[in-house]
Every structure is written in structure tokens, then in C-alpha cells.
């Protein structure tokens, strides 16, 4: 089965076929005329049946509800009466705009009016379209229930008895999923040609693999990677999952054009770029037009100006209850999920807002009763107002902490993975704007009042910064002076920081060590902390990967004894043309890869252990992507994890045994295979010799027919006696002089 999007489900894409069929007769009969003005009407069912004189009262009562979503008036409500002078239990309502009518349908449908009555709100057009005579059968037929089908377990890979990890490999036109087998070749799970058209992406907890096609996004999962869900966003280019895998955001540079007959997209999606989907139902929650960061002048259709898309456009809070988007320089819009209404009906106006980040976890702050989600944002200097970094609590929208900054040219916000700290990296320029320096302002979020610690003394600009996952240490890379115009890379310095040791509390951050004259530009922490790879990627001349251990178990450097770390360089590895580095989700392996998307030289991927021992090198033609399958968070409690760590020695004994056994098995298999191949070869040779001998006899040729027909006439080859090399050394005396001394 070629898993291209065309073969997914027929019903989704039958409009292509329709183009070829002449269905003008059907069109005439069924086409819905979109009459101007009717869009503002809604029909309300489920009203109480009242006599004429109390109709007025009911309308007034109803209006209170109706006006919560839009504007309408008593005149615009029409409640017809029947022959007996009683209302029929329904009413027609006209809103001011079609948007308000739509909002009424969305928000008032199914809302109780009183204890006995529940409103049913529909657009007048929809009643026309779907409820016309002949479209609804008179008698009720119970919908047929499909027989229950056992679905594949979406987390089946977690049950691997050897606790191996999976990865997706995209090379040439093929995408495969494999088991990592350490230094042995990976074991294939599935391998499909043309599985995706642009790229593949795992969901954050590894449940789904997303493939991207011009027709939309398809999610795959389960043991056999079967189709799970599809999201038909035409010409989708970017995909983003929410952190708990509940929602999906898709983006396309082309505004969506919704055509009649699309089963999932409605007219609401027309002209939009971004759709937020509910993964469970496969339906769009809400769609948006994207705000481009800096839209260039509109060019020709095919020569589009390079716009910088703000991605991820929507950022999710850690608990997935809120999603926010920034309108650069103006406001941050926070939406409640899943109804996608603006929190408190309005966006948060922040003049000049440049960037924001959610805390990646719900922080347990000191002195607070109810833990809320935190959001950090910054604004640059405007006029005489200083630049500002602020932290806001959501949903209360209360500002927890702000800090003013001066001479700011850029700010980057780095949350620690548990939300315990935010490092605000401030690039400062001097008054003359000639030299740059970087300040780190670290917000200690958990502590009372959120104290801010300033780490300066960095003369150079910091180009990369990364927190230790679940830890309180960090690594940064600063740029040295770049020789202008020279082809050589600017030298960089790598600095390691850790908090001072201070009993149980976490002390001030202190520099452990600075490594100078590097070319590194990438920091890759192990997902479990402690180990970090500092590498030079995307470079033409340097490709080194340094494997560091932050808690080396050997002798500690005297000068660094008061910090909570013991830094040690374990190994340096080179991988020519490396472009990407990825840790496996357990922190056991590191894969460095060189993708054809960046350059076409020596593409492929190498597997290393956490300590930098290279296990395998896999040069792969047209290699594109290597992605470890993420794992969901552990189900073990803290105590259980501690227990495991305590008994690590015993467990490792078991595993070592298994490894040895596996190696034995593999070796025997190889030897057996070789034996078989060798005996097959020898048998083939024997058979071939016999055939040759037979044929020679048949031709009546002598035994040595092939060795020089006329050998006896000419020189005789002396092969049988082996080679004898006769080397003659001829000494020629060119000149001889005699000198008498003394």
C-alpha cells in the first residue's frame, strides 16, 4: 500500500472527481442560493408555547439572552402565532451582522432558557439548506451503529521488553520507523515510500507521527502505524502540537479557499491561514489569519516576498487550558481552550510587546495559594520609557513581577523546563551603540516575591543559552571578535554555570569554567540533565562535538569546589558536515546527522553513547531527517524512581548479561551465515570447473588449452616455479679524483 494522501479515504477528496462529471442538473436542483441578508437570521426552537398576550414578555426575556452575543431588538424578533392564538415554540431573530448571528448559533445553541426549556439555535440558511421538504425523512430511523473494532494500542512501543527507543528516518522518498539496536543495524518497523511530502514530525509524547501533504496533515500511530486522524488543511506548511497532544495548529502561507462540499472545513475557515484543531474529534476549533512579523510589499503571484512567519504562532500553556498569540507591538490574545473564546473577552494590551513565553510547567510558587499558569513577555524601550520584562499570571491576568531595563537591543526569554527560573538574556549596547554586551537576569520564580539575580561580566554577546533540563545549571556560548571579511569562523567561548552550594537552598549562580577558542554554536542537553553536548553545527570547516559531564565522579577541581557541579570533558568526536544533534528521550544515546536539506556532502547519521563513544556510522544517500520518538512522562512516583536508582547495580548486571547473550547469538549467526556462504561458493566453483573440463574434452582441447596456444613456439611462462626477480645492479663510475692531503 502506498500511503499517499490520495488513497486515504475516498469521501474526503471526491470533489476532484466531480469536476469531470457533468452534474449541472443536480446543481440546479440542489444548489443553495446564498441570498444576501439572510445570513443575519437565526431560528430559535425550544421556546415555551405561550398565548398572544404573554408573547411580549417572553420576547423581552429572550432578548436578554440574545443580546449577550450580538445586537438585536424587539422589532427584529418575529414569533409567529397559529390559529389558536398560541405561539408555536419558535422564533425568527435578525441580528445586525452575520458574525453576530454565527456567534449566536455557536454560543446559544443548547443553552437552557429555564428549567424546562432549552434553546435550539440554527441559522435560517441552514434550516433552508438541510431542513427543506424531502430532505428529512418523515420517520425516524435509528442510526446504524458500526460494530466495535479493536483499535491498535497507541503506546504499544513502550512495552518493548528491552526498553528500546524508536526513531523515524526520512531519506530520499522513504520514511521508515526503526528500533534502535545500539551498534547493531536498526530493526525496521515500517518503511514506506512517499509517506510524506514535506517532513515528518512526532507528537510531543510520541503517540502520533504526522506526515505533511498538500491536502493536509495525517496522523499515524499504533503498532503498525495505521491512519489515525487527518486534518485537511490545503497546502499546509507548518505543524505544531500542543504539549499534551490535545490540539494541533497548522499553518499555510496560502489563505484557505473553502469549496462547497468540503465535509470538515466550513465557510468560517475561508481566507484563513491558521487552524487550531481538536485532535480527538478531528474538527477545527477556530481559524485565524496569520500576523506576519514583517510583511514585505505584495509581489506577483509566483514571486512572493519573503515574509517572516511567526512560528509557533500560538503558544500553549503547560496545562493546555490556554493558548496565546501575540500581535507584535500591540497585544497578547489569550484564548481559553476548547471554546476558543478570548479570556475575559479582550486581548491583553501591551504596547510594543516583542516576544512572550509560557512557563513550560505549572510552577508551585512560594506564598501563593492557587497555582496559575505564568507568562513572561518583554517590551523594548519606547521614547523615554525603559524596556520592560514582565511576568503575568493567567487566568487572573495579574502581573507578578516586572523589571525595567536600559540600553536594550534585544531580549530572549529562556524558561527552565520546570518553570523554576526564567533567564532573561539581555543584549545591551553601550551609549555610543558601538559595543555590545550581554546581561543575564534570572527570575527565581519559585521563591517568594520572585527575586531577580543578575549575572553580568559577559563582555561579548551571547549567541546561545540553554538550561539543564530539570536542573539549575546552564551553558552559554558567547561570540568573540569576528575578523571582518575573513573566511574563518569567529571564535566562541563556552561557559558553564552552576549555583553555589548552600545547604538545601539554591545559591547564587556562579561561573564554573570558560572554554575559549572554540567554534561551537549549539548546546544539546541530555533530556535527563547532567550530560551536555556542545557542538559546532552547520559549519563548513569545523564539526566537533564535545561531550561534557556536569557531575563527574572523579577528583574535583580545587578552584571549583564551592559550586554544585564537577565539570569534565569526556570525549570529543568529529562528524563531517553535522547539521543536527538529537538526544534520545532516555538520555542514553546521541545522534548527530548531516541532512541533505542543508548540504549534499556525506549525508547520513552517526549514533553515539551519552559519553561520546561512536556506536555506528550510517552514511545515507539523500538523508533528510532523524527523529527520536518522544516518550510520555514516567508513571513512577518520585520514591519509586529513587528506588530504581538505588538498585541500579543489580539491574545493570541483568542487562549486561542480556547484552552478552545477544552478542553471542549475533556472532554465532554471523559465523553460520559465513560458513554457508563459503560452502556455497566452493560448491559453485567445483561445479563450474567440472563443466569446463567436460566442455574442454568435448572440444577435444588439451589440458592447458587456455595457456598460450603457441606457447611452445614462443617464450614459456615460468609461473609454476614462482617468481624470480633478477635484479642487476650496474655501477657506473662517473668521476674519480684523488686528493693528497698534507
Amino acid at each position, binding site marked *: 500500500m502506498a500511503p499517499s494522501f490520495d488513497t486515504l479515504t475516498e469521501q474526503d477528496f471526491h470533489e476532484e472527481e466531480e469536476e469531470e462529471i457533468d452534474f449541472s442538473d443536480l446543481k440546479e436542483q440542489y444548489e443553495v442560493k446564498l441570498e444576501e441578508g439572510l445570513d443575519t437570521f437565526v431560528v430559535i426552537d425550544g421556546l415555551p408555547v405561550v398565548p398572544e398576550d404573554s408573547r411580549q414578555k417572553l420576547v423581552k426575556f429572550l432578548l436578554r439572552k440574545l443580546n449577550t452575543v450580538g445586537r438585536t431588538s424587539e422589532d427584529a424578533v418575529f414569533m409567529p402565532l397559529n390559529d389558536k392564538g398560541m405561539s408555536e415554540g419558535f422564533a425568527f431573530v435578525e441580528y445586525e451582522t452575520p458574525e453576530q448571528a454565527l456567534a449566536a448559533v455557536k454560543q446559544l445553541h443548547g443553552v437552557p432558557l429555564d428549567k424546562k426549556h432549552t434553546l435550539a439555535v440554527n441559522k435560517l440558511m441552514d434550516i433552508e439548506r438541510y431542513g427543506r421538504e424531502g430532505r428529512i425523512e418523515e420517520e425516524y430511523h435509528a442510526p446504524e451503529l458500526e460494530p466495535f473494532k479493536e483499535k491498535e494500542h497507541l503506546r504499544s512501543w513502550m512495552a518493548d521488553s528491552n526498553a528500546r527507543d524508536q526513531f523515524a528516518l526520512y531519506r530520499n522518498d522513504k520514511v521508515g520507523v526503526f528500533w534502535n539496536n545500539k551498534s547493531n543495524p536498526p530493526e525496521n518497523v515500517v518503511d514506506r515510500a512517499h509517506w510524506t511530502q514535506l517532513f515528518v514530525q512526532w507528537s510531543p509524547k510520541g503517540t502520533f507521527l504526522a506526515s505533511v501533504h498538500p491536502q493536509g496533515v495525517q496522523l499515524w500511530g499504533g503498532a503498525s502505524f495505521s491512519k489515525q486522524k487527518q486534518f485537511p488543511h490545503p497546502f499546509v506548511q507548518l505543524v505544531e502540537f500542543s504539549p499534551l497532544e490535545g490540539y494541533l495548529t497548522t499553518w499555510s502561507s496560502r489563505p484557505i479557499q473553502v469549496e462547497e462540499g468540503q465535509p470538515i472545513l466550513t465557510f468560517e475557515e475561508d481566507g484563513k491561514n491558521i487552524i487550531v484543531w481538536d485532535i480527538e474529534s478531528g474538527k477545527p476549533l477556530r481559524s485565524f489569519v496569520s500576523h506576519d512579523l514583517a510583511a514585505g510589499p505584495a509581489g506577483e503571484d509566483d514571486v512572493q516576498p519573503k515574509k517572516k512567519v511567526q512560528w509557533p504562532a500560538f503558544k500553549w500553556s503547560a496545562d493546555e487550558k490556554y493558548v496565546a498569540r501575540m500581535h507584535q507591538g500591540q497585544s497578547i490574545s489569550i484564548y481559553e481552550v476548547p471554546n476558543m473564546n478570548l479570556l475575559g473577552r479582550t486581548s491583553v494590551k501591551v504596547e510594543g510587546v516583542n516576544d512572550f513565553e509560557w512557563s513550560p510547567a505549572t510552577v508551585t510558587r512560594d506564598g501563593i495559594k492557587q497555582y496559575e499558569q505564568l507568562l513572561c513577555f518583554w517590551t523594548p524601550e519606547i521614547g523615554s520609557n525603559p524596556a520592560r520584562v514582565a511576568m503575568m499570571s493567567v487566568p487572573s491576568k495579574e502581573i507578578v513581577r516586572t523589571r525595567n531595563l536600559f540600553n536594550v537591543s534585544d531580549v530572549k526569554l529562556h524558561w527552565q523546563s520546570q518553570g523554576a527560573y526564567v533567564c532573561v538574556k539581555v543584549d545591551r549596547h553601550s551609549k555610543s551603540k558601538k559595543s555590545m554586551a550581554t546581561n543575564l537576569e534570572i527570575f527565581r520564580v519559585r521563591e517568594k516575591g520572585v527575586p531577580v539575580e543578575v549575572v553580568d561580566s559577559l563582555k561579548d554577546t551571547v549567541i546561545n543559552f540553554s538550561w539543564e533540563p530539570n536542573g539549575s545549571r546552564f551553558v552559554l556560548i558567547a561570540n568573540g571578535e569576528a575578523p571582518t571579511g575573513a573566511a574563518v569562523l569567529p571564535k566562541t567561548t563556552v561557559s558553564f554555570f552552576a549555583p553555589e552550594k548552600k545547604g538545601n537552598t539554591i545559591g547564587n549562580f556562579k561561573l564554573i569554567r570558560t572554554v575559549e577558542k572554540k567554534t561551537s554554536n549549539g548546546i544539546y542537553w541530555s533530556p535527563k540533565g547532567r550530560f551536555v553536548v556542545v557542538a559546532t553545527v552547520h559549519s563548513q570547516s569545523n564539526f566537533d562535538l564535545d561531550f561534557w559531564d556536569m557531575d563527574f565522579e572523579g577528583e574535583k577541581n580545587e578552584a571549583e569546589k564551592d559550586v554544585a557541579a564537577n565539570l569534565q570533558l569526556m570525549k570529543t568526536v568529529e562528524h563531517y558536515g553535522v547539521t543536527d544533534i538529537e538526544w534520545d528521550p532516555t538520555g542514553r544515546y546521541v545522534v548527530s546527522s548531516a541532512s541533505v536539506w542543508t548540504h549534499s556532502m556525506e549525508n547520513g547519521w552517526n549514533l553515539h553513547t551519552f559519553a561520546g563513544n561512536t556506536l555506528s556510522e550510517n552514511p545515507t544517500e539523500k538523508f533528510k531527517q532523524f527523529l527520536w520518538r518522544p516518550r510520555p512522562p514516567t508513571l513512577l512516583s518520585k520514591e519509586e524512581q529513587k528506588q530504581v536508582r538505588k538498585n541500579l547495580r543489580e539491574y545493570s548486571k541483568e542487562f549486561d548479561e542480556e547484552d552478552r547473550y545477544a552478542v553471542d547469538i549475533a556472532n554465532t549467526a554471523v559465523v553460520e551465515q*559465513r560458513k554457508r556462504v563459503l560452502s556455497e561458493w566452493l560448491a559453485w566453483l567445483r561445479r563450474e570447473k567440472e563443466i569446463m573440463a567436460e566442455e574442454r574434452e568435448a572440444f577435444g582441447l588439451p589440458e592447458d588449452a587456455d595457456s598460450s596456444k603457441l606457447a611452445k*613456439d614462443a617464450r614459456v611462462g615460468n609461473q609454476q616455479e614462482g*617468481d624470480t626477480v633478477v635484479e642487476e645492479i650496474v655501477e657506473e663510475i662517473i668521476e674519480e679524483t684523488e686528493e693528497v692531503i698534507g
Partner: protein
Amino acid sequence: MRPILLSGHERSLTQIKFNKDGDLLFSTSKDKVVCAWWSANGERLGTYSGHQGAVWTVDVSPNTVLLATGSADNTVRLWNIKTGECVKTWDFPTAVKRVAFSPDGSKLLAVTEKRMGFLGAIAVLDIAYGDGELNNLNVQAEEPSLRITCNESKATVAGWSYLGKYIIAAHEDGSVSQYDPKTGDQLENVQAHEFDSQINDLQFSPDHTYFITASKDKSAKLMSASNLAILKTYVADTPLNSASITPKKDYVILGGGQAAMDVTTTSARQGKFEARFYHKIFEDEIGRVRGHFGPLNTIDVHPAGTAYASGGEDGYVRIHHFDKPYFDFMYEVEREQLRK
């Protein structure tokens, strides 16, 4: 394994060939000169000059009396090896890309290029050896005794199977075919390599029962001469120009590298200009020999299996005499087999 560097050519090498005794090595190059060298010490014995264009190919008669060369000047020339004189010239309509003596030396095949309206063809010439005292070597047939025209895809290389029973030709489209040398009929055609990836070399085992092909599709195949069955496949990571089977030890040597036209755009480590040794039976790569700074165009192994030589785009021939570890290396299963 210290190589002997032969620097007698001014342009890239096209083919090198040991004689049957292995004491001589003949090399041809695009600089129109054919050279003969002592294989033991790399001293030049002499040159054969006369060709007006790049010399594409060379072969030595099994008794080391005659040397055949094919050139871009549309001729095949036959030389007296000892005296260096040209004893015979055959004219063809197009360039000659490959010549090969039959195992008994009585016939010579010549593969001609497809060009200027002429189809690629394989011509078979009868060869006479005079009176045995190296006289009258110039008495040769004027016309080919057989002409095989390649209608579909032109032949790039060709050779003789054991007893001269078949002519095996490899084609531009990656296929290998078997011809009857008496009638010229095509007996078999096998798409051995990827479609449209040219086969650049074809060399036989010492007994001519099987052969190895080297192709642009980055692989070499070991095939049976009698039924063209693919016996082994050796996968490399670079386009291959030449492949050779080693006697005495069960290895094959492959050579190639980034195509000449792409070399300037890539770094030296990109070129992969190494001779690669594979185990003939297990298909594993077991070693590489560096040295050339251009792609390897041609490889030949000493008939006794004690040395090999490679000729590169860089204009050098390197002769490597194998050291003891080369002969000692053995897989465990082979050792077992030997003990039996």
C-alpha cells in the same frame, strides 16, 4: 605496503595491464603514449609511440609477444613487445574503447564507440604469431572475422569467457550480455546494474569462469560467465571505474571516485579516491589504500596475486606489492575450511 610511483604519463591513465608472467606492466593514457614498465622495481622498459589520439585500451597476448592497443584515432594497433615496432594497424570508423585477447591468444576483440552515425560494435580479429621466432608478425588478417553490432545500448567493455566460448560485453545502460563468438548472436542479456548507469570495467577471474563488473551505480557485481547469474554484489559509496579479482586470496579490488567533472567542486576527502578491498565471498569491505589524488580509472592485479597496480585520473600509476599480513588475513571460517 610502500607503493612504487610510476610517473611517465602526462595525462590521466586509461588502462593498465600486467602480462601473464607479471614481470611487465603496460599502461595507456590520454597522452597518446603506451608505456611498458618492469613491475618489480617500476623502471620504464620503453614506450610504443604512433597513436595520434588518446589511447583508451591495451591488452597483452598470453605469450607476451604482441601488444594490442585501441585509440581515439580510430585504430587498433598491434605491436611487437620486444622491439616496440608497430606490426599492424586496423582502421575503424570510430574510436576503440576496449581490446581483449581470447584466453588462447588466437583472437582479439575490439569494442568501438557509437558516434557520427555509426552504431557501437564489437569486432573480432584473428591473430597470427608468425613463425615462432618473432618473424613475420606483420602477417595478419586485414578484415575482422566477425562484427557484432550493438543495436540497443552501446557496449563499453567486453572480454572472453573460458575457452573463448562466449564474448561477454557490458553496456552503457547497465546491462551485461553474452554473445556467441562464432555467429555473433546475442545469447543472453541481463540488467545487472541499475538502469542507465554505465558499466566501466569488466575483468575475468584467472580461469575465466566468472567476472566482475564495475558501474557508475556505485556497485560491483561478480557474475557467472556461463549463465550471467549475479553471484556477489559489492556496494561502495562512490561511482566505480574499475574492479579486479585477486588470485591466490579471495578478494576483489574496486576503484573509482567522484567523477572527474565533479571533483573540482568538492574537497579532497569527498573524492573517495581510494582502492577498496572487499572479501570476494563474504562481500565485506576489509580495507582501503589511499594515495591517488584523482579518481582511480583502472586497476589490475598481478597474475600471481602478489601485487596490484592502479592508474588514476591524476596521471600516476602506483604499484603495490602485498605484504605478509595481506596473505595471512583470513576469516575464522576460512581457516576452519583450510584445516579440513
